[in-house]
């Protein structure tokens, strides 16, 4: 009986440091944010006043907020499938048994070794409107120079491209690990059954890859919904709010517009949005085996 009791609490004991970290660094800030979103600043007195759901009501009437929702969703609808699709393709290529494949596996990982701010600054130099390298090449080829980050039509796509350049190598590592876990006997069996290359991918690779794929999909989605530094460094949310994602608008609210209540309300709504999308992803990608 005593041994049983020991067995029941031992796992919790080992989980305790991780749980403690999650509570202190994740759950507590969420509750603090929720609490903060119910208050508005007052001035001179230095006190904040309880306004219940006012911040949320004001947000729902604010066209800038709705624009940010639109930009955030548009970016994620494009960037997540793009990154995951390219990462999967890259992982499949890197899984081919070739001489010197180790070298290729290493170089595709280089972009992730460049920190996000440095990558942004480097790309800003390359894409500089006035005599940036990319524009110099375009002009030399007889093509018109492009505004890139200075255009409301191009800026978001440029940010998506930079983030994808950085992200694909990273996510492909997880998928490559997943691919290498698939037993070769399954492919042999499929080949004996007469399955072609596509059939083998559809019936063996993809189902067996669902676990790493769901991890990559969920994590990548969360990271992209919370992406902030490229906008902060490259465009400040502009031009014409075309890159003003919810995270950027929340940051502006807190540190430029002196309104922590509005900033917290935006983050809370972003949290709800992410939870809904992740729940849908889990449902869709749930492994059947």
């Amino acid at each position, binding site marked *: 009986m005593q041994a049983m009791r020991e067995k029941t609490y031992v796992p919790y004991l080992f989980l305790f440091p991780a749980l403690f970290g999650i509570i202190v660094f994740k759950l507590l800030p969420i509750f603090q944010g929720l609490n903060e979103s119910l208050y508005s600043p007052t*001035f001179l007195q230095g006190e904040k006043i309880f306004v219940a759901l006012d911040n949320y009501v004001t947000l729902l009437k604010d066209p800038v907020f709705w624009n940010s929702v639109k930009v955030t969703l548009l970016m994620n609808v494009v960037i997540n499938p793009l990154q995951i699709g390219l990462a999967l393709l890259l992982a499949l290529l890197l899984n081919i048994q070739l001489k010197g494949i180790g070298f290729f596996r290493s170089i595709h990982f280089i972009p992730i070794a460049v920190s996000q701010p440095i990558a942004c600054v480097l790309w800003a130099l390359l894409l500089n409107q006035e005599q940036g390298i990319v524009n110099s090449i375009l002009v030399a080829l007889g093509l018109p120079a492009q505004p890139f980050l*200075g255009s409301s039509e191009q800026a978001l796509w440029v940010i998506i491209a930079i983030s994808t350049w950085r992200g694909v190598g990273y996510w492909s590592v997880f998928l490559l690990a997943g691919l290498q876990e698939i037993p070769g006997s399954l492919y042999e069996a499929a080949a004996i059954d007469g399955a072609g290359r596509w059939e083998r991918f559809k019936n063996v690779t993809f189902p067996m890859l669902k676990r790493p794929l769901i991890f990559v999909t969920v994590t990548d989605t969360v990271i992209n919904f919370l992406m902030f530094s490229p906008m902060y460094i490259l465009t400040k949310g502009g*031009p014409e709010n075309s890159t003003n994602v919810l995270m950027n608008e929340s940051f*502006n609210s807190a540190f430029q*517009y002196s309104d922590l209540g509005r900033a917290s309300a935006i983050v809370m709504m972003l949290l709800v949005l992410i939870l809904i999308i992740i729940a849908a992803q889990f449902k869709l990608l749930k492994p059947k085996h």
Partner: protein
Amino acid sequence: MRKLSLLLVSLMMLMSIVAGCAKGSNQAEKPASGAAENGGKANSGNKTEVDFMVVSTWADDLQALATKFEEQNPNIKINFVSLPFRQMLEGIEVQMNSKKPSFDVFMVDGPLVSNYTVKGFLEPLDSYFSNDEKAKWVDASLQAGSYDGKFMAAPMNTSTDVLYYNKDIFAEKGIDLPAQDPDKRMTWEDTVELAKKLTFDQNGDGQTDIFGFTFRQVGRPYQLLPLANSLDAEVISKDGFTAQGFTNSDKMVQAAKFYYDTFNTWKISPKITPDETVEYFATGKTAMMIGSTAYIKMFTERGVPFGAAPFPYFNGNKAATPTGSFHLGLSSFSDKKEAAAEFIKFATTGEGAKFWFEQRNELPASKEVLHFITTDPKFEEFPSSVFRLAAFEAQNTAVPRPVSPGYLEWESLLTKAYEDIKAGSDPKKALDQAAEQSDRLLKKYDSLKK
């Protein structure tokens, strides 16, 4: 045995958590206990350490000023926290909202004095400065540092901008140099015509190599509001609570259209960031640049073939120039207020103010130093004579930026609008949006209306 090891593991975990928390609380308490032991001053050895939040472009000059102060006050050490302009503003918000003594002294842009006062960031300085000491600053700077009858931030200097030009590029194009005399001030229309001639592709690669004109502070209201001020525009309501009808008035739109045209119609200005403009001018990629007197020293040292002319105005309208600058604020959360105030006083008055002018070359707010500029014969020769021009502008054409408790929000939105206009947005649409959003954000200050 198993039980014992389990107990040990649990104990170790508990101890590590307790130690972690205890460490955190010790760190938080340290300055306070230090303060108690040393009569309100935290101590490092025998020195009181004053933390100073500064804008990175000013850090080297301020370091020289701090060294001078430390020579005279061996018991005080000034530590720097240096950030780029926009990040400094954000850093102030983040750290002040934590209500901790993260820094003791910080740079406050003149129009932000009211905003920081209502948010409770600033400690009033009335008890540290006598009326005689306050009377030594020009009135506009003293007013800019005051809110609601209280003196909140001491002016380091004021500022004036001039039109710098590159003599070599003018010579290459055979164009006469602009005059430095304010009576022969160029109009914006003349300036644009010159700039068009000075914009060209030098190496024939199909891209513009030399641009005719740039503002040093591209996109920032400090340099762009004088365009509207020249047209006599009121940029925000007098009480500072309403932007609609002011920030997007016809005159503001007209001025913004001029700014738009420099990039998108006439293409005389490069689409670069404020961080790049000085290098563009100093390396001969821009023929004319609106900039502050602070660059005289740098251009002279680097051998830039420069001259200076007065800030242009719109034909048939009045001359209007930017003014105002950084003040030094004492953090209301500082636990070393006495030592911090001593530094503020040194930096903004008497010998320190004069040293600061010689070091930084921004137009002084001290009447004494201004008098020195207008009377000392060394300011008759170029390039020092540009300070005489600056002093003239400060007394005759300077238009201060507006006062509003929500200046930070208003300015951020206006900067965003100007950035969009540079990128090619319709000026009216951009200003309409800025005014509309600004009014929404300024609503939270309604309780301050009198």
